[in-house]
């Protein structure tokens, strides 16, 4: 990686974070003069949790996307395309609407269990080093199943407002979360990212094949288990608080590898920064778009990410056909 790229990324992520706190500034400036405690409360209780969630969730998606892509040796693997986020959403919905637990810890536990189940199912269906088609089909099947079960759980929920209630959350949203809720997502995400960073070396060795990685002394089964658990843990906690947000986990690692000389393991750190940056930027778009209403952030990432995904598929197909 170029010496300047990493500090520049950190600077960009910090700037986006500060910008997320400051924009729009006029209401804060006006309040600061009239009612200083209220202005600080607005910053502390409304904008800080939102910026924190965008940074942590985006970074978690970026880091886990990079790790999953390295693990499956496939640039199209990501938490959303492998069904991990859908599994987490299902886990949280079942916990909240069927079991009736709505405390953040219960929701997070349910989501982590759902994400873990989805990843284990993916490994069982597609195998540890799947072809792109097999991986995407298995991910699609798991997403479809989790989506149908989520709808079923909402239909069977005792509350008649379950669908309406869950809609905004399912679309992915960072709005109106408390600082406590933000901590419930950000703390597991940060821990998972730090632990994933430690696996960068073994993940790079894995590019030489499982046998060679083993001859270096890396326990490949433990590596796989570690990445699956850390991804489920971090992504699950974020989904529990903010719902499912797509495409960041796919896009961030691809940009990150431009900075890591193509090394998939070394891309975990820049992917986390780029993921945080992208979600902060998407949230700024959501908040400042002159539409007179707030868009769900998951819609914005999907609108920007889906064309990129299509381009990637076309690009791969063109390259393979050559």
């Amino acid at each position, binding site marked *: 990686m170029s010496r300047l790229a990493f500090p520049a990324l950190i600077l960009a992520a910090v700037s986006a974070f500060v910008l997320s706190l400051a924009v729009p500034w006029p209401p804060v400036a006006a309040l600061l003069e009239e009612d200083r405690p209220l202005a600080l409360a607005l910053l502390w209780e409304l904008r800080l949790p939102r910026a924190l969630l965008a940074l942590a969730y985006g970074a978690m998606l970026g880091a886990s996307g990079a790790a999953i892509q390295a693990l499956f040796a496939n640039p199209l693997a990501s938490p959303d395309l492998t069904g991990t986020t859908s599994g987490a959403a299902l886990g949280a919905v079942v916990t909240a609407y069927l079991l009736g637990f709505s405390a953040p810890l219960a929701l997070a536990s349910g989501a982590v269990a759902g994400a873990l189940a989805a990843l284990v199912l993916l490994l069982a269906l597609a195998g540890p080093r799947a072809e792109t088609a097999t991986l995407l089909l298995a991910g699609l099947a798991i997403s479809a199943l989790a989506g149908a079960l989520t709808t079923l759980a909402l239909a069977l929920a005792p509350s008649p407002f379950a669908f309406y209630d869950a809609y905004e959350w399912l679309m992915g949203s960072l709005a109106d979360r408390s600082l406590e809720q933000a901590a419930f997502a950000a703390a597991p995400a940060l821990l998972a990212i730090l632990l994933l960073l430690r696996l960068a070396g073994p993940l790079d060795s894995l*590019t*030489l094949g499982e046998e060679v990685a083993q*001859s270096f*002394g890396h326990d490949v089964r433990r590596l796989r288990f570690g990445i699956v658990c850390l991804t489920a843990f971090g992504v699950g906690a974020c989904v529990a608080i903010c719902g499912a947000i797509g495409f960041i986990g796919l896009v961030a690692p691809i940009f990150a590898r431009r900075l890591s*000389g193509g090394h998939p393991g070394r891309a975990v750190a820049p992917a986390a920064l780029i993921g945080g940056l992208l979600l902060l930027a998407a949230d700024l778009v959501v908040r400042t778009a002159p539409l007179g209403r707030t868009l769900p952030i998951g819609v914005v990432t999907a609108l920007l990410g889906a064309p990129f995904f299509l381009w990637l598929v076309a690009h791969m197909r063109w390259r393979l056909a050559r």
Partner: protein
Amino acid sequence: MTPRLEARAVSLPGRLRPTDFRLAAPALVCLVGPNGSGKTSLLHALARIDDPAGEVRIDGLRPEDLAPAARKRLLAYLPASREAAWPLAAGDLVRLGLPPGADDDEAEAAMAALDLAPFARRRVDRLSTGERSRVLIARALAPRPRLLLLDEPVANLDPLWQLRLMETLRAAVDQLGQGVVVAMHDLDLAARYADRLVLIDGGAIVAEGEPQAMLASPSLEAVFGIERVAGIWRPLNRPEDRRSSP
């Protein structure tokens, strides 16, 4: 003197029976045997792949006791597969064989030895299979480990490169003092360069010895079902041979 390699009762369930294997001093040893006989499994057991039973010591050190960085200087393993799981640049792939912080000259020397300097920045998935083979071999050679374990390194190489690689491995033993264990199918090439041939069949070592003696040994003929007549290998007891004989 501590032997370069001392393997005791190494085994892999269903693939390799408990086997002892020893290199007293640096040497080039070729493993020969039919497809599925257990050559790769013995290399796996020596490289500590797939949790083999038994114990391996290289210069008295157990690979399991070393961290990955130190282990890269102790042994290097080249798998038979020439697939590249990830489209890295050739130079970056070779550097992955070295411990972190190693000098760039080491990677460059290994690449130069295999005429790979022009490919350093090329992605390995865009090289020919033979070129990619050389990149993968350079990765194994780069850290100059005390023990090289190579699975069919000459496969996919053209005749000149087969010879150049065997010369390189010979030099690794004679000049650098490395131990080299190679699984290969070309019996004549193996016999020409090796200090010792080891014949493997049914997941066990069935015979070993000095190369020319091994080529003439009945056990080799029996295991492969071939015989050497006037310097040319031909199948032994083929039905059509029997029909044509008087």
